[in-house]
C-alpha cells in the first residue's frame, strides 16, 4: 500500500481484450509523483517512437495525482495524455468534474489504453470489474446526450466521459466531455479515443483511498477551506468564475477580436461575466471538492433553438465571442453548447472559425468553397461551419485539421493569420502587448495553451512577482493599462510560471485556488504529508515540474521531424502587424525581440540555440534518454 494512492495501474488492450492490473511502483511514485509526472514518463517510455497519433499503438493515458480525491480544495482534476493529433508531439489535457477521482476510488491511479476495439465500444469499470462493452447505440450521438442516456442505462452513480461526433470523425481538435459541461479540450485528445472506437468510459468506485494521517488531513484540509474563504479572491473571483476577467482583458487590450486582428471590442459589457449571470445562469456548478466553482450552468435562447449549457467561461467567451465578432451572449452560449455536443474544443473551434471568416473576408475562400456565405459576427455561419467540421463535410474536412493544416491546404498566404504554435490553436489572450505571455505560449510543450504559463497580469503590471490573478487584475498598477514589462526581462517569470502552473497537474488538483485566489503553497505541503506520509516540499515539486519540461521537449525532438527553434515562433501576424486600435494601438513585438527572448529562454532552460536540451542539462535532471 502506498498512502494517498489507489495503488494500481489498469492496462486495457482493446485489440486483444486483455485487461491487466499491475501494482503502482514505488520508484515511479517517488520520482514522478503523479498526474503529469506519470503521463510524461509513461508516454516517453512506452509509446512506440514515430507512432501515428491515430495508430492503435498510440497509447491513451488517464493519470491521477496523490492529492486527487482527498479532502482539500479542488482535488478533482483528471489528467489525460497521448501523442497529439494537433502537434504530433507530447499532448496532454485535463478536466475537472468527478471522473478521475471515481476511477481512483475504484482502485486505479492510472489507466493506459492501447490498441483499437473491433466494434464501437465503451469501457465499463465497476471497482474491480472492467469490461469492454458494445456502444453501437450511442455512436454518432452528442456528448451530453450520450452521458444522459448512459446514466439512465447504468445508474446515476457512474461517472462518465464521452466523445462526440467530432471525436468519432477524428477532428484534430476534438475533446472529451464529462459531467454535462467539463471538457478535456485540447490537443485533439477526443479524436484519439475515437480512433480506438471508444465512445465513452463509465466508472463507479467505492473502494476509497488510504490516508496516512486522517486526523491531520481533517485538521489541515478544514484549514485550507476555512482560510480560502478569507482571501479577497474568494469573494472577488467565485461569483463570475473565469468569465469575470473579460472586462479586464478588454481594457488592457488582450481580448482577441476578429481572429486576433484587434485586441479589444466595443461590446465587452454584453459578453462579460455579469452578462453570463444576468442572462444565462441557473446554478453554480462546481468540480469535485471545489469551493470556488467557475462553472456557471445556464440556459441559452437563440433564434434557432434553446439549450442548457455550462458556461461560457472566459476562453469560450473570447474565442467564440469577440474573436468571431459575435456579441450576443445567448448566441455564444449556444455555440458553446453545439461544440460540447459535437465534441469540439471551444478554444480551437473559435480560432478555426475566425480563421475561416478571415479567409472568406479576404477572398481566399468563396461561397462555392464553403457552401454558403460566412462572415464574422454571423451566428448562423458559425453553427453551419461547426457542424461541417464535426462531420468532416466539404470545407469542414479542411478546417477539421486545425488552422495549421487548413492554411497549408488553402495557401494564398493564409498562414499569416493562422493563429497557432506547433499546430495547436492559441487561446484567449492576445499577446502583442505582452511579451511574457507571448513567450509562454511560444514555448509551451503542447502548443499554444495558457495552462502552462500565465503572466499577462505581470506584463501589464510590470511586476516580477508571481502574484495571484485576483490581486494582479484588481491592483492599482492597472491605472495605466499599457504594458510595462520589457521583452528582455520576462524570461525568469515565464520560467517560474511554467514550473508552478503545471505543478498542480502533477499533484492532481486545480491550480485556481493558488493561481487565481492566492492560497499559499505551504498548505499543499502540509496536506501532501498528511495524505502520503512523505515530506515533499514545494521546491522539490517545482524541480520535478522543471524536469518534465526537458522530458517533454525531448519527446517532441524524438517525434517531430526537424523539431527545434522554428517550432517556437508565434503566428506571423503577431510580429508583423501592429495592433490597429484600442489601448495598445501600434504595439507589436518585432521578430528581433522574439529572437532575443528565445535566446534568453533557451539559456535559462539549459537548451542549445536550436532549443534542444543539452546533454549536461539532461544529466543534471537525471534524464538518461
Amino acid at each position: 500500500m502506498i498512502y494517498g494512492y489507489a495503488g494500481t495501474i489498469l492496462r486495457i488492450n482493446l485489440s486483444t481484450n486483455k485487461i491487466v492490473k499491475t501494482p503502482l511502483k514505488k520508484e515511479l511514485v517517488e520520482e514522478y509523483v503523479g498526474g503529469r509526472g506519470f503521463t510524461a514518463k509513461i508516454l516517453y517510455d512506452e509509446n512506440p517512437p514515430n507512432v501515428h497519433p491515430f495508430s492503435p499503438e498510440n497509447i491513451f493515458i488517464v493519470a491521477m495525482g496523490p492529492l486527487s480525491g482527498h479532502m482539500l480544495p479542488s482535488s478533482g482534476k483528471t489528467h489525460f495524455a497521448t501523442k497529439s493529433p494537433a502537434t504530433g508531439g507530447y499532448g496532454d489535457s485535463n478536466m475537472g468534474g468527478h471522473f478521475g477521482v471515481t476511477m481512483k476510488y475504484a482502485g486505479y491511479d492510472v489507466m493506459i489504453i492501447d490498441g483499437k476495439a473491433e466494434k464501437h465500444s465503451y469501457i465499463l469499470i465497476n471497482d474491480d470489474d472492467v469490461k469492454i462493452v458494445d456502444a453501437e447505440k450511442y455512436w454518432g450521438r452528442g456528448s451530453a446526450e450520450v452521458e444522459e442516456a448512459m446514466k439512465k442505462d447504468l445508474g446515476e452513480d457512474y461517472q462518465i466521459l464521452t466523445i462526440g461526433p467530432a471525436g468519432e470523425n477524428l477532428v484534430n481538435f476534438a475533446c472529451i466531455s464529462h459531467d454535462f459541461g467539463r471538457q478535456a479540450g485540447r490537443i485533439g485528445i477526443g479524436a484519439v479515443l475515437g480512433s480506438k472506437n471508444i465512445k465513452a468510459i463509465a466508472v463507479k468506485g467505492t473502494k476509497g483511498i488510504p490516508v496516512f494521517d486522517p486526523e491531520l488531513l481533517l485538521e489541515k484540509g478544514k484549514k485550507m477551506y476555512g482560510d480560502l474563504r478569507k482571501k479577497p479572491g474568494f469573494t472577488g473571483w467565485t461569483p463570475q468564475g473565469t468569465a469575470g476577467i473579460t472586462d479586464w482583458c478588454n481594457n488592457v487590450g488582450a481580448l482577441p477580436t476578429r481572429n486576433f486582428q484587434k485586441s479589444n471590442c466595443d461590446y465587452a459589457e454584453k459578453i462579460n461575466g455579469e452578462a453570463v449571470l444576468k442572462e444565462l445562469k441557473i446554478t453554480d456548478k462546481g468540480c469535485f471538492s471545489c469551493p470556488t466553482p467557475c462553472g456557471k450552468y445556464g440556459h441559452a435562447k437563440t433564434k434557432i433553438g434553446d439549450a442548457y449549457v455550462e458556461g461560457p467561461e472566459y476562453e469560450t467567451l473570447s474565442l467564440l465571442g469577440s474573436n468571431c465578432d459575435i456579441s450576443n451572449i445567448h448566441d455564444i452560449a449556444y455555440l458553446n453548447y453545439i461544440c460540447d455536443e459535437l465534441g469540439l474544443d471551444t478554444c480551437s473551434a473559435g480560432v478555426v472559425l475566425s480563421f475561416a471568416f478571415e479567409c472568406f473576408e479576404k477572398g481566399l475562400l468563396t461561397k462555392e468553397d464553403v457552401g454558403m456565405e460566412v462572415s464574422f459576427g454571423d451566428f448562423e455561419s458559425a453553427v453551419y461551419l461547426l457542424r461541417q467540421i464535426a462531420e468532416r463535410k466539404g470545407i469542414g474536412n479542411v478546417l477539421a485539421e486545425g488552422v495549421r493544416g487548413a492554411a497549408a491546404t488553402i495557401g494564398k498566404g493564409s498562414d499569416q493569420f493562422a493563429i497557432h504554435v506547433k499546430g495547436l490553436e492559441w487561446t484567449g489572450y492576445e499577446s502583442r502587448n505582452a511579451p511574457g505571455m507571448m513567450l509562454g505560449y511560444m514555448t509551451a510543450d503542447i502548443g499554444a495553451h495558457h495552462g502552462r504559463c500565465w503572466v499577462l497580469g505581470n506584463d501589464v503590471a510590470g511586476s516580477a512577482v508571481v502574484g495571484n490573478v485576483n490581486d494582479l487584475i484588481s491592483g492599482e498598477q492597472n491605472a495605466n493599462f499599457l504594458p510595462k514589462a520589457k521583452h528582455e526581462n520576462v524570461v525568469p517569470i515565464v520560467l517560474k510560471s511554467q514550473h508552478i502552473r503545471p505543478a498542480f497537474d502533477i499533484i492532481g488538483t486545480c491550480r485556481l485556488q493558488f493561481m487565481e485566489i492566492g492560497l499559499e503553497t505551504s498548505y499543499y505541503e502540509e496536506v501532501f504529508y498528511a495524505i502520503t506520509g512523505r515530506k515533499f516540499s514545494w521546491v522539490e515539486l517545482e524541480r520535478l515540474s522543471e524536469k518534465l519540461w526537458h522530458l517533454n521537449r525531448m519527446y517532441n525532438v524524438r517525434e517531430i521531424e526537424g523539431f527545434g527553434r522554428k517550432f517556437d515562433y508565434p503566428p506571423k501576424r503577431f510580429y508583423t502587424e501592429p495592433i490597429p486600435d484600442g489601448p495598445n494601438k501600434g504595439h507589436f513585438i518585432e521578430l528581433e525581440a522574439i529572437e532575443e527572448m528565445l535566446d534568453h529562454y533557451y539559456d535559462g532552460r539549459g537548451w542549445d540555440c536550436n532549443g534542444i536540451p543539452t546533454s549536461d542539462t539532461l544529466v543534471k535532471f537525471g534524464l538518461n534518454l
Partner: protein
Amino acid sequence: MPLQYSNETCSGCKTCQLVCALSKFRTSNPSRAFLNVKGKFPAPGKYYVEYCNQCGNCMDVCPTGAIEQTDGVYNINSELCIGCKLCIDACPYDVIRFIDGIAHKCNDCGQCAEICPRNALSYSAEGASV
C-alpha cells in the same frame, strides 16, 4: 435548529461527503458518507443533497433496540446492531451505510455544515451569505 439544505447555492462539490467519510471512517471515500449529492442535468440543472434529518424511522424498525434517541439525534449502538439492514430499508433518504457487518448513520456532528464552502448545508434558518 436542525441541519438545513438549500440548493440555491449548492454547487455539487461533495466536500460534505469527503469530511463525513474521513471523520467517521478515516478514509477518502465519499461512497461511505451519510449524505448523497445528486445533480439533475441537463435539466433542470440543479443539485440536491440527501441527508439525515433525524426522522427516527430507523429506530421504529430496529428489532434489537440498537437505535436510541438522545436530544433529537438517533444513534446506533454497534454492540446491539445485528446487521439486519431493516433501518437501511426504512431510511427515506438512503443515507444509512452498511459497513463491516453493521449499520452506521449520521450522528449530527455538524462537520458537513462547518466545511460546506457554499453554505448550502447549515444550521441557521437562512444560511450565511456566500
